[in-house]
C-alpha cells in the first residue's frame, strides 16, 4: 500500500456486532466430544431448552465496555475510601451501635457475595448457550468485586473496633451464620437452572432491593460514607443482575410449557428461603441503625408487596403465580424484627456483637411504626428487661435452641395468626423426627428430604462434640462444652458479645470521640465530659 497519508482504518465494530462476536462467534459445535459429555449437569433437573439462541441478554455488555465501567467505578470507590480513612470517617457515624450492624454485615453477608461468585463461575462452565454463559461469567466477576470492596471498605473499621478481624472463620463456624452460609450452599449444590432461578430471580430480582435500598440509605443516614460508596458501586451491578434474573425466568418459561411447574416450585422454595435470610436485615434496619430510614414493615410493603405484586401480576401470563406463603410474610412483617432482636439480646453472650435495649425514643418510634403489635407484645417485654438490667440481673437465656432443619434459624417464629404461640411443625422421615420453623421450610424438606437430612445444624454439632477447638479435652473435669464451642466459633466471651453499655467498643468510642456510644442513653464514661 502506498504511503500516501490517507490510511483509512477498518470501521470500528458497533456494540451490537461486538456483543454478537463475543457471545455467538466464540461458540462452536463440538465434533470429537459428545455435547452431553461436555455439559453434564444440564439435563437432570428436567428443564427443556430447545433453542439457546433465543436468549436475549438485555444489556448486551461487551468486554471492553465492562472493563471500562467497572474500572471507573473502582477508581471512584477507592478515592472515597481513601478520603474516609484520612479523615477518620469511622468516628463520624451516628454512634458506636451503628458499627455493630457493620459487624453483622461483614461476618454474615460478605461471605455470600463470595459464595455467589463461586456459583456463577459454575454456571459460566455449565450452560451450553454462550450468551448466558458470558452473562454468568461477568456476574461472577461482579460478585467477587463486591466481596473485595466490602472487605476493603470495612477493613478500616477493624483497626478501631472488635469483632471483625476474623470474618471468614466466623462465617464458617458461628452458629447463627450457618443461616446465610447454608442458604448459598443449598443453592450451589442444586442444578444450574435451580441456582439461577434461586439467586438471579428469587433473590436478586425479588428480594435484594430490600438489602440495597433501605440498607444503603441507612448507611448514608448514619454518616457512613464508606459503606454508602461500596453500596452505590455495587448497585449498578445489581441492576444488571436483576435484569438477568427476569430474562432467565422469561427464557425458561418461553422455551417449554413443561418448565413452568419446575420454575414455580423453585420460586416458592427460594422466595421463602430468601425471605427467612432477610430476617437478619429486618433486625439490622429496625434495631441497629441509630437513625432509622424506614421500618422493616414499610420496606416489606414497598419492596415486596407493591413491587413484587406488580412483578407477579406481569408473570401471570406465563402461568406463574405469586410465591407460596407470601401471605405469611405479610402477617409476619409486624413482628419479625422484634422477635429476632429479643433472641439476640437474651443470648448476647454467645453472639459476635454487643446488644442493647431500645431507648424510650426508639420504643415510641416502634409504637408508631408497629401499631398492631409493639405496645401489646414487645414493649412490656423490653420494659421488664430494662428493670432487670437496672437491678443488675439482665434477662439471659442459656439454653440452645431447637433449630429448623431447612433454614437453620432457631424455631423463633410464631403462628401467622397469633404472635403469642410458637410455630410447631415436624415430620417423620425414615424413622427420624425433623423440626421446622414454618410450613414454608417444612414443604422444602418434604420435597427433598434426601438433601436436608445431612444439614450441618450447629446445635446438634455442638451436642455431638464436633465444635471444640483443637486440643480441647472434653474429659477434663472443668470442661465446659458451651465455652469450648464459642472458642471454636471465634467468639471471645467478654469481648465480642454482651451488653453494649459494658462493651469495649463503647468505652473506646467515648474516649476517642467524646460523644456517647449510644446517643439516646447518655455517656457511660467520663470521657464524654472532657473538654480537650
Amino acid at each position, binding site marked *: 500500500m502506498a504511503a500516501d497519508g490517507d490510511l483509512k482504518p477498518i470501521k470500528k465494530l458497533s456494540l451490537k456486532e461486538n456483543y454478537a462476536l463475543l457471545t455467538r462467534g466464540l461458540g462452536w459445535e463440538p465434533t470429537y466430544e459428545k455435547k452431553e459429555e461436555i455439559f453434564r449437569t444440564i439435563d437432570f433437573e428436567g428443564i427443556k431448552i430447545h433453542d439457546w439462541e433465543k436468549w436475549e441478554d438485555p444489556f448486551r455488555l461487551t468486554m471492553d465496555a465492562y472493563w471500562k465501567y467497572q474500572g471507573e467505578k473502582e477508581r471512584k470507590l477507592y478515592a472515597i475510601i481513601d478520603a474516609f480513612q484520612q479523615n477518620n470517617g469511622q468516628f463520624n457515624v451516628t454512634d458506636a451501635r451503628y458499627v455493630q450492624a457493620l459487624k453483622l454485615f461483614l461476618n454474615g453477608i460478605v461471605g455470600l457475595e463470595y459464595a455467589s461468585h463461586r456459583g456463577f463461575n459454575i454456571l459460566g462452565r455449565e450452560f451450553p448457550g454462550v450468551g448466558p454463559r458470558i452473562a454468568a461469567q461477568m456476574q461472577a466477576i461482579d460478585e467477587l468485586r463486591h466481596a473485595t470492596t466490602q472487605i476493603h471498605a470495612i477493613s478500616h473499621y477493624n483497626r478501631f473496633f472488635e469483632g471483625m478481624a476474623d470474618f471468614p472463620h466466623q462465617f464458617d463456624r458461628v452458629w447463627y451464620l450457618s443461616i446465610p452460609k447454608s442458604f448459598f450452599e443449598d443453592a450451589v449444590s442444586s442444578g444450574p437452572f435451580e441456582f439461577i432461578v434461586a439467586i438471579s430471580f428469587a433473590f436478586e430480582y425479588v428480594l435484594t432491593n430490600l438489602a440495597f435500598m433501605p440498607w444503603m440509605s441507612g448507611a448514608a443516614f448514619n454518616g457512613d460514607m464508606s459503606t454508602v460508596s461500596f453500596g452505590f458501586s455495587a448497585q449498578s451491578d445489581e441492576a444488571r443482575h436483576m435484569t438477568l434474573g427476569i430474562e432467565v425466568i422469561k427464557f425458561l418459561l418461553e422455551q417449554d410449557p413443561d418448565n413452568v411447574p419446575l420454575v414455580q416450585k423453585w420460586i416458592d422454595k427460594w422466595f421463602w428461603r430468601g425471605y427467612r435470610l432477610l430476617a437478619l436485615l429486618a433486625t439490622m434496619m429496625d434495631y441497629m441503625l441509630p437513625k432509622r430510614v424506614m421500618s422493616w414493615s414499610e420496606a416489606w410493603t414497598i419492596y415486596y408487596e407493591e413491587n413484587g405484586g406488580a412483578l407477579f401480576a406481569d408473570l401471570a401470563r406465563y402461568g406463574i403465580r405469586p410465591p407460596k406463603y407470601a401471605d405469611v410474610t405479610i402477617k409476619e412483617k409486624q413482628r419479625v424484627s422484634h422477635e429476632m432482636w429479643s433472641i439476640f439480646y437474651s443470648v448476647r453472650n454467645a453472639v459476635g456483637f454487643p446488644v442493647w435495649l431500645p431507648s424510650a425514643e426508639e420504643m415510641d418510634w416502634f409504637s408508631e411504626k408497629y401499631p398492631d403489635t409493639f405496645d401489646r407484645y414487645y414493649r412490656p417485654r423490653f420494659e421488664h428487661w430494662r428493670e432487670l438490667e437496672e437491678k443488675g440481673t439482665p434477662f439471659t437465656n442459656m439454653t440452645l435452641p431447637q433449630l429448623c432443619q431447612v433454614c437453620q434459624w432457631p424455631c423463633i417464629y410464631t403462628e401467622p395468626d397469633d404472635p403469642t404461640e410458637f410455630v410447631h411443625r415436624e415430620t417423620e422421615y425414615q424413622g427420624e423426627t425433623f423440626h421446622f420453623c414454618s410450613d414454608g421450610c417444612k414443604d422444602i424438606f418434604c420435597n427433598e428430604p434426601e438433601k436436608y*437430612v445431612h444439614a450441618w445444624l450447629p446445635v446438634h454439632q455442638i451436642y455431638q462434640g464436633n465444635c471444640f477447638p483443637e486440643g480441647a479435652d472434653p474429659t477434663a473435669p472443668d470442661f465446659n462444652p458451651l465455652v469450648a464451642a464459642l472458642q471454636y466459633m471465634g467468639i471471645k466471651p467478654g469481648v465480642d458479645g454482651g451488653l453494649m453499655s459494658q462493651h469495649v467498643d463503647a468505652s473506646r468510642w467515648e474516649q476517642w470521640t467524646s460523644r456517647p456510644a449510644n446517643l439516646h442513653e447518655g455517656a457511660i464514661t467520663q470521657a464524654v465530659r472532657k473538654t480537650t
Partner: protein
Amino acid sequence: MPVKAIKPGYHGEFRDRVENFRGQQLLNICWEKHTMFGWPMCIPVPPEMPFGALLEQVLPGIYGAHPDFARIKWNEVQWSSAKGPFTPDPSKSMVEHGFKHKTQIRFRTPGLDGHNGAG
C-alpha cells in the same frame, strides 16, 4: 417428590442419628406462650432419665428466670407432643414415655400466659 440429582439414588447421610450423641438423645422442650425465651429449647438427655428429674433438675435451670415459673402448679400443667396430650409419670423415663430422639414436648400453663402479656 424425590430429590433430582446428578447421580440416581443420591441420599445424604443422616447427620443427626442418635448414635452420634454418645449415649444421649435430644429432647426439645417448649413452654407455650412464653415467647420471651425466644425458642423451644434443645437439650441432650440420657434416655433413662426419669421425667421427675426433668421437672426438678432441668426445667428450673432453663425457665427459672421467668416471673411465671415459680407460680406454676405442676399438677395443672397440660403436656403434649405432636402425637397429642399426654400425662407424664415422674418415675418413668424418657423412653418409657415414648420419647424418641428429637421428640418435642410442650407444656401449657393456663392462667400463666407470659409476663404482662409479653411472652
